């Protein structure tokens, strides 16, 4: 019973992290129809900027420590606004409707460029910004300590998910986005400003990627290469959930999170492999992912 409880807790923690790193990727794919491999570097950029801000903030140890959470959010928005628009306007818009293989290669190239750019900007030595992680203290669940930071992570993930849902489904701009998702050509004909939709959505996606990175930064040593690890997981999660579907990303994250936690506690030998097992099973049963996009409505 205790183990089940711990698995549930671990699963939720991992799922919220997976959702944060995956949701931006699926959003961008849903609207722009581009699989953005550079997502991993945007996550890493978020982690670096978040770490740098937090470290700078704690230079003065007397500062109110809880503001550091806010700085992580600022880091994500900063990265999104600085990197998003130029990347979309400068490069990605030339790729719309092209061969998917070309899009993959181009975003992979961006990924490599950003990885090296990160080394140029931040060097190769690790950054440590772990202060916020222990700040909130622990809660003991079934005899195992969990930092409240994990709860914060869960809240951030849920908030991001809810806001995104609200934005897409309950605002005028969101309706325009849905229209574009369904038929970009007709939307243009009806007077929707397509470039504006694209650049806004992409920037939002970058902010979400950087948000995942920024909130991961206090848990890790921020070193070159962290983006590589994440991109693989993010792909797995959104493929399971259905490419382009934020709801799917949430479900995918939850499934992967719980299954992996179960593996860690029950059959640790399987841990390395379990995510891909889930992914392979889902692809065999529902190749379009669990939340199929409205692709079928196309003529």
């Amino acid at each position: 019973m205790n183990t089940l409880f711990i698995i549930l807790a671990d699963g939720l923690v991992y799922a919220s992290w997976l959702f944060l790193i995956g949701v931006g990727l699926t959003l961008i794919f849903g609207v722009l129809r581009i699989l953005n491999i550079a997502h991993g570097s945007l996550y890493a950029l978020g982690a670096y900027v978040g770490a740098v801000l937090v470290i700078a903030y704690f230079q003065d140890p007397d500062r109110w420590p809880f503001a550091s959470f806010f700085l992580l959010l600022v880091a994500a928005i900063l990265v999104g606004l600085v990197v998003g628009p130029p990347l979309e306007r400068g490069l990605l818009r030339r790729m719309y409707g092209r061969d998917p293989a070309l899009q993959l290669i181009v975003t992979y190239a961006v990924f490599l460029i950003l990885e090296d750019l990160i080394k140029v900007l931040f060097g190769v030595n690790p950054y440590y910004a772990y202060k916020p992680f222990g700040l909130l203290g622990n809660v003991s669940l079934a005899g195992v300590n969990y930092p409240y930071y994990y709860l914060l992570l869960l809240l951030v993930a849920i908030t991001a998910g809810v806001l995104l849902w609200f934005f897409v489904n309950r605002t005028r701009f969101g309706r325009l986005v849905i229209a574009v998702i369904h038929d970009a050509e007709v939307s243009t004909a009806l007077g929707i400003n397509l470039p504006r939709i694209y650049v806004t959505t992409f920037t939002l996606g970058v902010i979400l990627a950087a948000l995942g990175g920024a909130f991961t930064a206090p848990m890790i040593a921020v070193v070159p290469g962290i983006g590589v690890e994440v991109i693989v997981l993010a792909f797995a999660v959104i493929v399971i959930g259905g490419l382009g579907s934020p709801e799917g990303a949430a479900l995918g994250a939850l499934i992967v999170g719980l299954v992996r936690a179960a593996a860690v506690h029950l059959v640790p030998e399987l841990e390395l492999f379990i995510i891909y097992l889930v992914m392979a099973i889902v692809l065999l049963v529902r190749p379009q992912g669990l939340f199929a996009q409205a692709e079928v409505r196309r003529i």
Partner: protein
Amino acid sequence: MFRQRMYSWLSLLVALSLVLGACARPTPSAPEAPAAPTEAATPTPAPPTPTSAPTSTPVPPAPTSEPLTASDVGITPDTIVLGMTAAQTGPVATIGVPLARGLQAYFDYLNAQGGINGRKIKLIVEDDQYTPANTVAAVKKLVEQDNIFALVRPLGTAQTAAILDYAAEKNLPVVGIASGSSLWSVPFKKNVFGIQPTYALEGKLMAQYALDMLKAQRIAVFHQDDAFGKEGAEAFIAALKARGVEPVAVVPYSPTETDFSSHALKLQEAKPDLVFVYAIVVPASSLLKEAEKNGFKPKWLLTYVLADPILPFLAGTAAEGVLAGAWIVDPLRAPEAQTYRDALKKAFPDEVPGGYSLSSWVVGEVVATALSAAGRNPTRESFIAALEGLKDFTTGLTPPFSYSDSDHQGIKQLAVVEQHGGNWTPVTAFFGEAPAVAAAPTAAPAPTPAPIASPEGAPTEIKIGIVTFLSGAAAAPFGIPSRNAAEILIEQINAGRAPAPYNTPGIGTARIVPVYIDEAGGADKQVAEYRRLVTDEKVDLVIGYISSADCLAVAPVVEELKTLTVFFDCGTNQIFEEADHTYLFRTHAHQIIDSVGAARYVAAKKPDLSTVSGINQNYAWGQDSWNAFSQALFKLKPGTVIGTIQFPRLLAGEFSAEISALLAARSDVIHSSFWGGDLEGLLIQGIPRGLGKDSMLVLTTGDTALPRLGKDIPPGLVIGARGPHGAFAPDTDLSRWFKQVYTDRFSVRPVYPSYHMSQALFGVKAAYEKAIADNGGKWPTVEQVIAAFEGLEFETPSGVIKMALGKGHQAVEPVAYGTTGEFDPALGEVQLVDVMVFPAECVNPPEGIKSLDWIAGGFQGAQCP
């Protein structure tokens, strides 16, 4: 629908390729190839300045897209025409023919490889019968009718001297003259490049050799009475006189003479114990035969001009045991000359390999190297600039040499070879003029290094390939600290500033020149990089490898390429347990000491332990470490039960669930060989959750995290440093000095990979210097260095290292573990308490037993306090 599905599969594919490619991601590699000439050459006092004087800016290497054009005289889109003058008939044809054939064989070989940038080399040889008047006519024909781009390896001093003015006027490059006259380099001539050591230099070096090594006291000189013979003999006699020695006889001969009986008698009457011969091959062999006939047996020391199989061919037994100079390797037997022998045989099946043809082959290599560096469409100017850009150039057939914009002399070193049964065998390494040790940037005031004489035959430089991670996840924790250690140590060693016993400059006075290579990219890439280091960079030895996978892949190639190689950090115990090695050494202990030491520490400090868990990365290092640790612990504490064994993905970074599992298991001991970002991630995520509070958390590489996480390391963690390194380093002069210079430069203390690097560098220095001592003060061969290295004991900042295993090729080290205590603000780290040092004999298997068998057998032969 189809699109959706395709994307799903495509992304799966991408995901998998990223997983597989994560380790092999292309990264910018640090070392750069020897640069093409960048410095503009300023025309210095050149003799008869041609009207069309070459301007000084070399042409920058052209982009490969540039079409091939007829960029200068003798260059067409598909050919480069070169000319050569050499006697092909008459008495000197015995020299001229092999010279021409060696060059032709090289260009045939080069053309078969595709030529230079798609152009084939065409060589036109003109016979001048060793007569200057003919040479002038021949060169005019080559320039005006054949439109040659350059004149290569013309034979003869007087012959080539006769065409210098004409060549300058025509701006014709003259490269690699088959003559060691100083005329080519003094005064400086922009278009003329010598190759072989000047006769003046040889005279000087041979005088040193005769006095210092052969201990000759009565020295006579026999020389040709012309520019060639006088230059060498006069330099030889001047060097003798400078040492207060007068020659007992000086016997010149005219090039036209054919009978040398009177010369032999004159020499014999002076009763010399050594005769220095500066002659060409026919007079020299006649003299030797006359002397043999008369029973006159001094020590014969000959100019390098005579070091060719032709001499014993002509002189027979009279030439047995004679010594001569040599500026090229043994043409018949040196492994470096195999390509040459094969190519020569293919081009001229009846030509016996020898010094003349090999020396021309070398010139061919020099010319080809400069041509390919001279841009896609070379001009005479860019070709000259490229030649001037050759620095420390050698293909292994000659000592390294450099040209510059003020020095066109060529090779400045010689070896001495001895003739037996037609073979010339080296008795020394190359020795000669060494540029002064480059002044190292001064950091701290230091005692001036004691003046020390170079071992005989010592090179000026020793080139060491240094391979560590400069990018990727292993760069920050291991690669950079070890590279930094190499940088500061090499700088200090070259300047002679290290403390005793390493307070002499360089390695036996040879300056260490490092070539840094990035270890990132996977084992296959490292094998290729290793080959490149040995065959292209021509390093003297390689120090490298952090990853066990790279060590395992490189080890067999080391033996294949027969290059001294020192593994400095990789952990696997397999290398010397699976095979014997000759050229390979490892100057640190393998991972067994970490695992066995950790088990012994845990068993001693927590005698009542009953459960153990582990979290290790899911690849060789993590699995091997857990295996050895758990096996050792089960032997020491039978009945220990396993809690949970976690093997997360390497570099996963996020361990929330694994930490939960470890906390839930509540084992007495948790073992982890995590390193780098994973180690720090485990601590950052685990410490706030109380990991290590109720269980004893053992971190076998924990030392690297101490300076990084500072006061956030809680008390009670068990920390290892893979040996007596870092926080466990002994308090010796050498150790304090190393920590000081490292910290001053990099503002962070050295960690264990830095100490491992110091072990490799000091081990190499100790081995070379022992080999020099064993070799009577002469520069040793690789085999002699290996003999000295085997079983060596040497001082390091981590204490005395013994090369005790693997037939003297594998080091053993003690290992230390300690428990973290209070934060020490002065140190900037937590203190280590309850430190236990396990001697090498306690944590290493004895020679001949494999580590895991040793553990399984209950540590037989272990000597623990």
